[in-house]
């Protein structure tokens, strides 16, 4: 991508959003003072050249007439559109009276004087002059307004207005006051409708706008900074997504089709950005479903993160979630639309979670390659979240200020807050859900404080130029050089609607190009932040020279055109559209949920335990690893039954299947008696060679630090009818474990056991004990020490027996956290003393499975790892590392995880968390700045480092290991759709009966620390095997939908049909079957 900055000397655009601070208006009196201004584009005189309008917060707005060749003329004064007095914010254009000329609507905020806050409607007189008529139209609203959105909300054909507002005082913006409601339940106090601060809804009645806020249900009390109006639930009526700053989560107001709206955000989204600012909604992967981006304020640079971002407060996070404020994280979120009205945040995978204090996102195809790229503006005049300023410097300044109430002193205080201009970001869409930062390469690395921004083809050359409203600088005008470089083709459309909606706002335009690619856009120029984009629908089409086009107008009328030539602008007129003929094509999904049919109604209960209270530096918790599930016929009726483990203080449960495929809970006193243990692993096998399935349960978790006997491995003997008694055959085997692998590895006729140690409770980073237990006619011998390396091999998460070298003896395959793929080869019943490890496979593995996925006759492996969609990154060149020691000799184990950025490996812990774990370091890092750039070499002495154990991760991908037949493996990553969540469970089978092994995978991890946020993007995935490769089937096709914190999946035969049983932490057991 290539852009050229057109300087104001050439363009004539000399506007500057200078913020004049005064006694009445400063950062202390108005917290949103530096939120900046917007920009709107539109051809106000219908000469074919788009004109520009900028809002200035405390300076006059400006209107620039486009003279062609990127030259502009300031006609503000002659057009009478300077915005008047007051603090101006958002701006949009709209032909409100259907006279064929765009009018301008300007929002105002900040000031206490109501009259200075009245929004302005400039009606276009058609002769380059405007007349202010807000009052006449009923739109002279005096709220604290952010931005106005004109859209036909009630589907009566005309444009209504949604006005986004915010409260005026910020003192309580983060307070959550809890009180009893009328029903006697404790709830957060929600502010009720307040004049001038809640959002407002205006219904258009014959071009007079009537305030219907109260009846609409949109009168919310939140710090709204942007909104997206679109049909999120495909019911033909527009809904409203609202980005809210600070504690209020974002809202998704679903249109009830009766002029009322209901917030249902949590039905659609798993989490939100905490301080949501600008937003955009566009299809980033051309699957036909629009994806949402909302911006936050996380810096990209780790040192800046450590200075500017407060460490997470676990209790407060939980409190917000508990009282209806959703799960919110300080980072951008990119919500990939799954197509079934759910969204998955893929910002970490996409590479766009952190773009500093960000305002405008623009999703548009800037290089005309058919993929929507991302432009982000950022910058805040002062780093008011600088932790050193907040904790230390504000104090001394304030103490001076206390002694005088003069505002000059407040200003003096503010002037010492660090202040940096930063680069905006331009990302190129790579076409595989990832984006590349091309800011510098595109010539856009100019530091600025940038706010509202738009794209528009200002020079009518077929590519999208970018215009940015800056504080203290003239606007950026970036000319797009794509057409000049003749690198790709485009096709553009102008929509001509009817008189009530002349621009066709809300129309959907789809194109299909000869290469088979489909693209879709929903036309609404009012998006991003405070701004209004161009009045065209623009598609890049790469090397294609023609496209088929279809447009669906808001009234449902459709027009299709075939073989439009590239590199041209077409008009699409609603007059040429015809009512659509609805074709109801319903594909039959491969999978279907059958939980209800099985009568399994079981929700995993998790005991309340917070690992971070003892170990603040943990990457995630170990007290929430359940449930485990084991499947077998326990009562000899030839139907599969299943056991699911209980968390601490909750007993495990045995479900018995009857002949009709329904399950009943069976009472098992011996299992109940052991409820104080947390069950993390379970397996059925015949331990005593009496022909029935006995039950092995591994205790685990993190709840009992320093109490090893709370982690026994337990064996329950089956009487053949499914009644279990505690066996004495396994005694004094203690470890907080998880993995179980059963096999007669020595072929002596009975089943032997491997137990993997998962974690040392309270001492993460130390290596727990694993066990190999040899079965001798029902008596078990601990032979772990016969293989010296085995006992402390690592934090094992999964283990299988698999004959990887085809010698007829199953080898022991292990994976774990901070572990490589580890294989103990089995030579005639004896395990090799040294395991074979794969050097480039040190991962944060959750699971390992085996299947001949390439059909070459040997066993391949499939590993579930942490995936690319988390904060934790590591590869061979830049591994994720962890050092472990009791650095301060106080008996607590300290683990410090470091991650590379720009060639330097920084600890990921924020200062407060690190110092909380190692108090003695407080003396070393008196300020946040002192710590920001520190690596472990500055934190610890060489001696301390020498004595610490070191762990690494150089592979985070969910991957297959392809076997060459001799036990040598080559990694082949699963498709990118399988990289958006940690995979905890894998089941292989030829599900679609095409003769090739397929996979279903499930995962997520909700137990993470609160800074980087929980991994909840997974909804399960069906991977269709196609010889060597897997094809990720969208949920809309496969029907394989298992949302939640999926911890395990097992095959189970129900009513003689193969099904998959899914266990979820704090979730209900789900059973998925094949549809046919």
């Amino acid at each position, binding site marked *: 991508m290539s852009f050229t900055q057109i300087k104001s000397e050439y363009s004539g655009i000399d506007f500057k959003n200078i913020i004049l601070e005064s006694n009445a208006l400063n950062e202390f009196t108005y917290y949103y003072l530096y939120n900046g201004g917007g920009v709107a584009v539109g051809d106000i005189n219908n000469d074919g050249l788009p004109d520009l309008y900028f809002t200035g917060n405390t300076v006059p707005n400006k209107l620039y007439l486009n003279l062609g060749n990127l030259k502009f003329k300031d006609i503000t004064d002659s057009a009478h559109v300077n915005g008047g007095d007051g603090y101006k914010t958002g701006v949009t254009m709209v032909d409100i009276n259907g006279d064929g000329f765009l009018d301008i609507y300007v929002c105002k905020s900040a000031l206490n004087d109501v009259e200075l806050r009245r929004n302005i409607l400039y009606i276009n007189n058609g002769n380059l002059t405007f007349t202010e008529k807000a009052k006449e139209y009923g739109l002279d609203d005096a709220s604290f307004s952010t931005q106005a959105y004109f859209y036909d909300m009630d589907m009566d054909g005309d444009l209504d207005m949604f006005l986004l507002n915010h409260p005026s005082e910020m003192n309580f913006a983060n307070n959550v006051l809890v009180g009893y409601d009328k029903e006697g339940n404790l709830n957060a106090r929600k502010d009720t409708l307040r004049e001038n601060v809640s959002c407002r809804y205006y219904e258009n009645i014959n071009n007079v706008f009537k305030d219907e806020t109260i009846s609409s249900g949109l009168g919310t009390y939140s710090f709204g900074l942007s909104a997206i109006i679109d049909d999120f639930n495909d019911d033909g009526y527009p809904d409203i997504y609202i980005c809210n700053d600070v504690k209020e989560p974002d809202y998704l107001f679903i249109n009830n089709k009766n002029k009322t709206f209901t917030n249902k955000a949590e039905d659609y989204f798993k989490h939100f950005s905490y*301080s949501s600012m600008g937003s955009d909604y566009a299809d980033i992967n051309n699957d036909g479903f629009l994806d949402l981006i909302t911006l936050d304020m996380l810096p990209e640079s780790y040192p800046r993160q450590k200075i500017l971002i407060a460490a997470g407060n676990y209790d407060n996070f939980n409190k917000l979630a508990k009282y209806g404020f959703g799960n919110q994280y300080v980072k951008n979120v990119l919500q990939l639309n799954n197509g079934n009205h759910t969204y998955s945040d893929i910002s970490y995978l996409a590479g766009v979670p952190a773009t500093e204090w960000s305002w405008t996102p623009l999703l548009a195809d800037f290089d005309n390659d058919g993929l929507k790229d991302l432009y982000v503006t950022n910058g805040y005049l002062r780093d008011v979240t600088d932790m050193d300023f907040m904790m230390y410097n504000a104090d001394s300044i304030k103490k001076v200020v206390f002694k005088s109430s003069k505002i000059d002193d407040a200003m003096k205080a503010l002037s010492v807050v660090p202040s940096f201009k930063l680069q905006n970001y331009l990302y190129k869409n790579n076409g595989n859900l990832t984006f590349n930062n091309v800011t510098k390469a595109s010539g856009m690395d100019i530091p600025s404080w940038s706010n509202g921004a738009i794209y528009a083809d200002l020079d009518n050359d077929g590519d999208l130029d970018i215009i940015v409203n800056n504080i203290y600088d003239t606007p950026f005008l970036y000319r797009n050089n794509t057409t000049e470089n003749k690198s790709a083709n485009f096709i553009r459309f102008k929509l001509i609607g009817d008189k009530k909606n002349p621009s066709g706002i809300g129309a959907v335009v789809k194109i299909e190009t000869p290469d088979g690619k489909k693209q879709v856009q929903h036309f609404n120029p009012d998006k991003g932040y405070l701004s209004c984009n161009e009045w065209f629908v623009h598609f890049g089409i790469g090397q294609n020279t023609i496209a088929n086009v279809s447009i669906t107008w808001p009234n449902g009328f459709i027009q299709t055109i075939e073989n439009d030539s590239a590199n041209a602008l077409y008009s699409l007129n609603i007059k040429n559209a015809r009512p659509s003929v609805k074709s109801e094509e319903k594909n039959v999904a491969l999978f279907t949920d059958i939980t209800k049919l099985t009568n399994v109604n079981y929700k995993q209960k998790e005991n309340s335990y917070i690992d971070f209270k003892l170990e*603040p530096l943990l990457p995630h918790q170990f007290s929430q690893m359940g449930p485990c599930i084991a499947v077998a016929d326990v009562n000899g009726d030839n139907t599969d039954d299943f056991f699911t483990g209980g968390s601490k203080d909750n007993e495990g449960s045995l479900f018995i299947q009857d002949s009709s495929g329904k399950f009943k809970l069976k009472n098992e006193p011996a299992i109940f008696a052991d409820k104080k243990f947390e069950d993390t692993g379970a397996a059925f096998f015949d331990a005593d060679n009496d022909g029935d399935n006995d039950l092995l349960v591994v205790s685990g978790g993190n709840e009992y630090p320093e109490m090893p006997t709370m982690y026994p491995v337990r064996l329950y003997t089956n009487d053949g009818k499914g009644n279990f008694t505690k066996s004495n055959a396994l005694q004094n085997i203690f470890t907080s474990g998880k993995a179980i692998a059963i096999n007669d590895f020595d072929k002596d006729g009975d089943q032997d056991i491997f137990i993997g140690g998962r974690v040392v409770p309270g001492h993460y980073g130390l290596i727990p004990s694993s066990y190999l237990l040899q079965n001798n006619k029902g008596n078990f011998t601990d032979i772990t020490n016969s293989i010296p390396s085995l006992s402390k091999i690592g934090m094992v998460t999964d283990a299988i027996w698999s004959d990887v070298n085809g010698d007829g003896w199953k080898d022991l395959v292990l994976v774990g956290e901070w572990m490589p793929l580890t294989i103990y080869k089995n030579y005639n019943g004896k395990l090799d003393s040294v395991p074979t490890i794969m050097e480039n496979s040190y991962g944060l593995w959750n699971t390992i499975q085996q299947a001949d996925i390439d059909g070459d006759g040997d066993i391949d492996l499939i590993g579930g790892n942490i995936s690319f969609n988390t904060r934790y990154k590591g590869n061979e060149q830049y591994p994720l590392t962890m050092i472990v020691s009791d650095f301060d000799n106080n008996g607590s184990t300290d683990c410090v995880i470091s991650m590379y950025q720009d060639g330097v490996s920084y600890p990921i812990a924020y200062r407060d968390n690190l110092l909380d774990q190692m108090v003695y370091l407080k003396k070393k890092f008196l300020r946040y700045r002192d710590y920001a750039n520190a690596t472990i070499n500055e934190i610890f002495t060489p001696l301390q480092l020498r004595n610490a154990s070191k762990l690494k991760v150089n592979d985070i991908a969910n991957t297959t290991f392809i076997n060459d037949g001799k036990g040598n493996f080559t990694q082949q990553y699963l498709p990118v759709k399988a990289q958006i969540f940690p995979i905890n469970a894998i089941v292989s089978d030829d599900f679609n009966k095409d003769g090739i092994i397929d996979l279903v995978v499930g995962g997520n991890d909700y137990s993470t620390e609160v800074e980087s946020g929980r991994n909840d993007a997974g909804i399960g995935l069906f991977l269709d095997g196609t010889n060597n490769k897997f094809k990720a089937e969208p949920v809309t096709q496969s029907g394989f939908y298992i949302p939640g914190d999926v911890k395990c999946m097992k095959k189970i035969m129900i009513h003689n049909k193969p099904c998959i049983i899914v266990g979820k932490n704090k979730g209900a057991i789900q059973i998925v079957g094949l549809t046919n």
Partner: protein
Amino acid sequence: MKKNWIICFVNLLSFNTGFSASFKDNYLVRCNEKLIEVVMEDLFTPPVASRVHVYPNIAAYEVLCIGNAQLKSLSGPIKHLPKLGFTKTEINYSIAAEFAFTTVAKKLVLSEYMITDFEKEEKDLWKNKNIDTILINKSIEYGIQAGKQIIEWVIKDNYIQVKTMERYVLCDNVGAWKPTAPAYTNAIEPHWNLIRPLVTDSSSQIKPVANVPFSEKKNSMYYKNAMDLYTTSKSLDTLKKTIAQFWDCNPNISFSEGHLTYFIHKISPGGHWLKITGQACINLNFNELKTSETYTLVTVGLFESFISCWSEKYRSQAMRPETYINSLIDPQWLPYIQTPPFPEYPSGHSVLSASSATILMEIIPQPYSYTDSSEMYINIPPRTFDSFNAAAQEASVSRFYGGIHYMPSLNNGADQGRKIGNYVLQKIYYRK
């Protein structure tokens, strides 16, 4: 909240320091004043601050004991404190005591450089008194060695273990403490009861009477106490507001306006009483022995007060008024001063003020009235008190006006504090 602050701070720059000229003449007052300043800079929580204040004073005291037979070593009353391994020698014991103080202080504070700078200034002061440089250096070295011996004892007080024990886990019991606005900080120092006490045998030796049983019923005592607090808070007159502000002593108070959050560092409750102590030592022209004794007794009292008080706080885990009132009476209500992040019962300020006043009433010849200008640094005008007890009572009731403690917390806390003060006196002071 911010507005209230600004309104009540009239411009009184001229009173910048509360001390008369003789402040400069008492090195132990200078040391303690410096330490208060560093403690404020380093944002220690009140219990940790009490630890930082007590050990340097014990170090100075023990050095002075060697030089002056009038003082009796605390090794004995403090069972685990070993006697310093020194005999009387030809040094300046004042200088040695001062540097024992600073040596221990440097170990305990974070901003060591502030103490190091102070040491340089102090050394110059001694030089200006025409004391032989060799003697000064010898005395300093003596003090440093003494300080190091004290440090060996200090580090066994379980602090570093206590700091990394399980952080406070919110309790689901009805009436249990919940984090409060605006920062929703987790409860601090939940295991402070495990810090090694000095003169008491354990943290539970001096317990307050049990708290009023929690109840949400309107006819309950608990509800009545809350209503008392609520109605009082709704009609605070200027005097009550002034009192609440004067004794606020919240070492790290945060103000939040959206993303703009900032903290104001204030003298901790213990620090406030050390200001009062220093002022008394100056006003009465105490010599170094009397000064050291006074500071040591008061700081031991503070240290014991926090252990005992914190022990009860986490035994009862009582909810703060704002949590109770928001849920049952008025969802919009906030206390006049900010609620600090730890359980309600009993009031720490009541305990330690009573303990300090009890000790000071005994050491300082009575009657003694005084003007307290400790809060001038944030422009809160001085207040005059007829006695230390009167001040302690006002400090206690300030928590009620401020809306952060109920009445029983004040009264029972003050009882507890008096018992602690008397116990400290009995163990250390009356024995001679």
